[in-house]
């Protein structure tokens, strides 16, 4: 099983000791009349693993997608590693960036989706090599060597030439994690990475995420796996109705929730 996952140890990154990896302030987002995020404040420090819990429709995915600007926000601000996401501050205003600039700004953030979203026309190793070659303009051989190494680390050394359709869900998700890691992100976002998996395949994906956590990767994980949150996460954030209802250590939030809404949610999922 995986040994060390982080492409390079996070200490290599010149991150200031006081600079949070993610800082969200008063983030608001609406789809038409439907206000989905109603002022989210969240700080995630480098190396922290935060899990985001909450009932369906509470805005977890939307918030996660705002962090790498897959959704634009309506008010407030989000910064990753000190730089504003999706906007440029100028003359007391935040100006929206152009698509190519947004793309460049996403380099530090990796994302793993519930439905894997592997590129079906490419093999596992090609999936992993794609962005390093075409975005980072890495030399093909170097990118391939790195991709093979990452696939070995997620336990897929024997599946590098397989197309996604010939892999199990758990294998596909592990390729997706390797693919995100190939860009050497400082922050990883996981949106229910195991929800689409058969129960017996959940463990292999969570194991990979645990290894990442042990390597000091900063991560935000939307999950319904309470056991995972308890074991791996430094902090649990409970969202409901577009706001953060409560947050704290897993012990506090999961064992001794303060809010009625948290209690009722936990009583359903536990």
């Amino acid at each position, binding site marked *: 099983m995986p040994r060390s996952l982080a492409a390079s140890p996070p200490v290599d990154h010149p991150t200031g000791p006081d600079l949070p990896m993610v800082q969200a302030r008063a983030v608001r987002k609406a789809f038409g009349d439907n206000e989905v995020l109603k002022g989210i404040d969240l700080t995630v420090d480098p190396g922290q693993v935060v899990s985001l819990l909450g009932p369906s429709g509470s805005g977890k995915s939307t918030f996660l997608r705002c962090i790498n600007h897959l959704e634009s926000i309506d008010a407030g601000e989000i910064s990753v590693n000190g730089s504003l996401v999706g906007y440029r501050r100028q003359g007391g205003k935040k100006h929206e960036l152009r698509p190519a600039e947004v793309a*460049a700004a996403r380099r530090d953030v990796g994302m793993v*989706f519930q439905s894997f*979203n592997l590129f079906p026309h490419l*093999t596992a190793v090609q999936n992993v090599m794609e962005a390093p070659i*075409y*975005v980072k303009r890495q030399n093909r051989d170097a990118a391939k060597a790195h991709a093979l190494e990452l696939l070995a680390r997620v336990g897929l050394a024997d599946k590098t030439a397989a197309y996604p*359709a*010939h892999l199990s869900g758990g294998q596909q998700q592990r390729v*997706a994690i390797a693919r995100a890691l190939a860009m050497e992100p400082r922050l990883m976002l996981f949106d229910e990475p195991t929800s689409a998996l058969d129960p017996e395949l959940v463990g292999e994906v969570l194991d990979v995420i645990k290894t990442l956590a042990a390597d000091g990767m900063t991560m935000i994980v939307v999950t319904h796996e309470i056991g995972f949150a308890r074991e791996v996460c430094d902090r649990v954030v409970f969202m409901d109705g577009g706001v953060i209802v409560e947050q704290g250590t897993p012990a506090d939030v999961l064992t001794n929730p303060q809010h009625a809404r948290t209690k009722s949610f936990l009583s359903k999922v536990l």
Partner: protein
Amino acid sequence: MTAQTVLPTESGHAEEPIVRLRHRGRWVAGAVLLVLAAMFVNFLATSPKLRLDLVVGYLFERSILQGLLVTLELTAAAMLVGVVLGTVLAMMRLSDNPMLRGVATGYVAVFRGTPILVQLLFWFFLGTVLPQISLGIPFGPEFFSISTNTLITQFAAAILGLGLNEAAYMAEIVRAGIGSVDKGQTEAAQALSMSPWLAYRRVVLPQAARLIVPPTANEVISMLKLTSLALVIGLPELTTTAQLIYGRNFQQIPLLIVASIWYLVLTTILTFIQSRIERRTSRGVLGATRRRTRFAIGGR
């Protein structure tokens, strides 16, 4: 209703033979067709006015072969215009810019909503209302000017007429192909910090191609036959050439048969190629499936 009682014998009725259904209708239909075919062959063989010997004589005649070449060139050029412009139009229709979307929608409406014959004539006669085509700053100085009739030759008018019309159809085909690619694919590409254009080129288009290629092959086959419409502007492709010859010797049917034989040969070849392509692309998204199936079929 009387249910036949089945006696529980040792073997049931397992030993009774099965009698197949007789398809009497098939035999009758076959016989009718056979008679009709015999009448047709008899007509071909015995009609003194039908000079089948001319068919053989003209099949490889020089001007016919030259016309055939023009037909092939025109098909290729018009399809090239159609595919390139059609892809651009499809991307315009899918863009966020309402102006681009509007222009593309209007283009498709105009070119699909008017007869292709009219479009061909339109480009051919453009010179009558626009004698000069010039390159320069709009409403400003001209750098370069050329007579429309010099620029839009018969061949160019045919390429424009067929190609611009084809673009409207290709736009729909490409748009359907792109639309079929899951949105999660673009998002995954974006999350890997690919620019929109890179995501299109490396992730969306290769997947869309699977759905775009088979109908495009159909379009090529249609185009091959549509080139015969260039007759109305007098471009000496296959049909026009046949017409020019029968205009002199009044052997219309033999020459039309000559042209038809060539069209049939070409469409047969294209259909064969198309079925090969379709077999490849319909084997799923995957190179891997493809390779596997090939082994399974037994190294074909």
